[in-house]
């Protein structure tokens, strides 16, 4: 009786933060917001109806009158998490798997915290970066299984802003994390076992690093 209730509660909370902001009218609000057209001006409607549309926004020009007369509230999710920092592939996955996305988010926070404890900072292309990816992939694998984990991790790397070198490093360390999670079978003390394994791999230079901080 309790399990379905909690599941429903999580879905409601997550829907409110993720799916709802991506509904059709919100898409149009986002589309209008990005154009930087000022609502309330004489030329607003004209400028709005001439805006370029895409697959998800092709009906938005019909809402120009409404968009030009009402102030757009800031998207709910933006107040809480940086939705913009998700890649397009990640946004699609969040819409498709909202419950799993929450677990992915929690796993990332856990990996960031663990990296901070062990390295002092969350850096870039160094040992802390390698360790963070290792931990994140492993925690996700434990909670979601290998297949879903791979989907989210690959989506995270799907950005043109990262160099090939960096992508190769991240994907390698992700795979090491997945392998470690499959190896560590015990649930109790999983994180400490995992941290030990990750630090050992760093020490033996078995995780990829572009720029060593030592």
């Amino acid at each position: 009786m309790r399990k379905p209730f909690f599941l429903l509660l999580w879905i409601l909370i997550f829907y409110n933060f993720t799916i709802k902001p991506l509904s059709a009218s919100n898409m149009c609000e986002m589309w209008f917001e990005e154009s930087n057209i000022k609502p309330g001006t004489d030329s607003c409607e004209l400028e709005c109806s001439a805006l370029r549309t895409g697959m998800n926004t092709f009906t938005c020009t019909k809402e120009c009158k409404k968009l030009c007369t009402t102030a757009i509230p800031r998207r709910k999710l933006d107040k809480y998490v940086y939705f913009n920092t998700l890649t397009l592939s990640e946004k699609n996955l969040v819409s498709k798997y909202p419950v799993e996305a929450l677990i992915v988010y929690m796993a990332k926070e856990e990996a960031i915290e663990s990296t901070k404890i062990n390295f002092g900072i969350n850096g870039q292309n160094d040992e802390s970066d390698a360790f963070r990816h290792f931990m994140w992939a492993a925690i996700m694998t434990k909670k979601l299984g290998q297949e879903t984990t791979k989907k989210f991790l690959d989506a995270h790397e799907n950005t043109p802003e990262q160099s090939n070198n960096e992508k190769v490093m991240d994907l390698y360390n992700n795979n090491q994390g997945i392998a470690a999670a499959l190896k560590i079978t015990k649930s109790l003390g999983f994180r400490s076992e995992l941290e030990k394994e990750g630090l050992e791999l760093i020490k033996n230079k078995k995780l990829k690093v572009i720029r060593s901080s030592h």
Partner: protein
Amino acid sequence: MNKKMWLIIMSLLILTTSCFSEVSKPMSIKKAEQLLGKNKFDVKAFQTGDYKIRAKMAVDLITSKYYIGKPFADVKKDLGGHDGYFENDAIPAYILTDKTSKVVWQLVFIPDDKWEKVRSVEIRKN
């Protein structure tokens, strides 16, 4: 529904919102000015300088809106490789305070929805 159930629901809600709001607090400009100082932003000096030099230019970089609306790829081209991390490895984040201190602050460049232009620049915890 009994009291215990309500308590569990409320705790869950608080936990969820506090988890989401954890990342939502950038340092205010006023506090940044007090903590880091305010020197004029200079691309070359930022690129070659250490965290102390970068820190002093952070407030001017934000308030002048130097990068707002500019191509997102320009940030790394101008300022060089970054040493911090915020949400995604591809988001430029430059450490501004001592890496060994308890709270490490960094300058973060947030992209727009399409990752094409810079939407905002903020000082956030590493």
